[in-house]
């Protein structure tokens, strides 16, 4: 037995000894629990702010035993030697996480506590959901270490804001028994109320954004483009409809080329810079410029034996045609390539070359 028993009495020293000899088991449990939760989050596409765990340190346990060791008959009575914390972005996600934890582990309901529901109507403070759990044999079983399934552990679930408040509160030293003056305690609790309000607001805003997204996606799906503003969300939904595939296939057919599929999201900023504000305007550009975009491609690749093109070719040629059609200069065309591919001296050369081709082709009739 180590010399240092932290001045504990015999009973508490024995619990501390048990802890020392069981430390490897708790570390093993930590790995099992973290893997199970992490897999479950991934399977359910849940993203959390943090998933963290710790096995209580010897000195921390000794401190706890010194304060209230008489409450525990044996080591297994302590439920927080292994502690896991799941911190969510939104308050409604805490319940989703709780459902996953219930599904994965055996819950000791008698000792689990929902601090969110403990507050009286007029009080605010620590908000967190604590489950006391055991690892079921369905997840892990080792006859040599049955304690893996009998020792309990604690899972705390709360939002990022609740976590911030809890840490601030902890920082005040409540654990050490230091008594906080009433006025400061009141300030802290008042802050808890503000954060609770902020948590609710974040959830409400997210619900509104999701509603908006669903509405816009429905408009895009119904080809009701005029009412749909051009932004990251709507453009992504629009691209899901493969709006340029007909033109791309037509261009590819010039040389029986294969089409290398590319995510066209990088066209969003160039399209905005061209002045497009709705998907309806993009659709109109497609209708008005497709013929010449194709002719340009015939002129460019028809004389070559190139038999591979990227799926950006259709939209790129549409934009080029649109700029020329709207009296755009070489400078404006070069600026388009700057926004599309990043600033480069090549862009001016590319713009000049295209204007030469346009003149040669007498594509001025575009205008």
């Amino acid at each position, binding site marked *: 037995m180590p010399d240092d028993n932290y001045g504990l009495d015999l009973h508490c020293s024995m619990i501390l000894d048990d802890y020392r000899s069981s430390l490897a088991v708790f570390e093993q449990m930590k790995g099992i629990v973290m893997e199970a939760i992490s897999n479950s989050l991934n399977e359910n596409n849940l993203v959390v702010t943090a998933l963290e765990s710790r096995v209580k340190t010897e000195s921390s346990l000794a401190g706890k035993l010194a304060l209230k060791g008489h409450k525990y008959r044996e080591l297994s009575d302590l439920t927080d030697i292994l502690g896991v914390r799941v911190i969510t972005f939104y308050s409604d996600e805490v319940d989703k996480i709780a459902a996953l934890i219930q599904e994965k582990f055996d819950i000791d309901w008698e000792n689990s506590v929902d601090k969110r529901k403990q507050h009286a109507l007029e009080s605010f403070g620590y908000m967190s959901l604590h489950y006391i759990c055991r690892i079921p044999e369905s997840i892990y079983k080792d006859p040599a270490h049955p304690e893996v399934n009998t020792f309990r552990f604690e899972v705390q679930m709360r939002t990022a804001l609740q976590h911030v408040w809890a840490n601030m509160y902890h920082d005040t030293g409540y654990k050490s028994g230091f008594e906080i003056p009433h006025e400061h305690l009141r300030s802290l609790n008042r802050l808890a109320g503000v954060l609770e309000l902020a948590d609710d607001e974040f959830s409400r805003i997210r619900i509104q954004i999701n509603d908006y997204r669903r509405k816009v996606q429905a408009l895009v799906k119904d080809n009701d483009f005029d009412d749909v503003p051009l932004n990251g969300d709507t453009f992504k939904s629009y691209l899901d409809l493969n709006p340029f595939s007909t033109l791309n296939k037509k261009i590819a057919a010039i040389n029986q080329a294969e089409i290398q599929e*590319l995510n066209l999201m990088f066209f969003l900023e160039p399209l905005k810079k061209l002045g497009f504000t709705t998907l309806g305007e993009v659709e109109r550009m497609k209708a008005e410029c497709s013929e010449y975009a194709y002719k340009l491609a015939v002129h460019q690749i028809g004389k070559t034996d*190139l038999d591979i*093109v990227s799926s950006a070719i259709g939209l790129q040629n549409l934009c080029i045609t649109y700029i020329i059609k709207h009296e755009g200069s070489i400078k404006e065309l070069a600026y388009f390539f700057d926004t599309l591919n990043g600033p480069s001296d090549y862009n001016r050369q590319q713009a000049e070359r295209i204007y030469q081709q346009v003149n040669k082709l007498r594509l001025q009739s575009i205008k």
Partner: protein
Amino acid sequence: MDVKINKVDNKFDVILTGRLDTTNADQFQKDIEILMEGENPDITLDCKDMEYTSSQGLRMFLMLQKSVNARGGKLVMKDMKPQVKEVFDITGFSNIIKII
């Protein structure tokens, strides 16, 4: 196509000289095998002496770009001759590979 590779840690400076087409694409693939290995490669293809690339060459560059992306690396092509750059532009490959 002549390929000269200078490697320092994960940084590769590659000088490409000549034409890249179906006749030498297989050899080119072997020449650049070293670029297809390792994490976070930082690859610069110096193209000032590259005269031409065919579709087969574009496929090789595409394969290299995908491999680099998968390994969290960076690929740039620099100092292209106008006739080579035009091949990238008219096929939409300028949107796939960073050209400086």
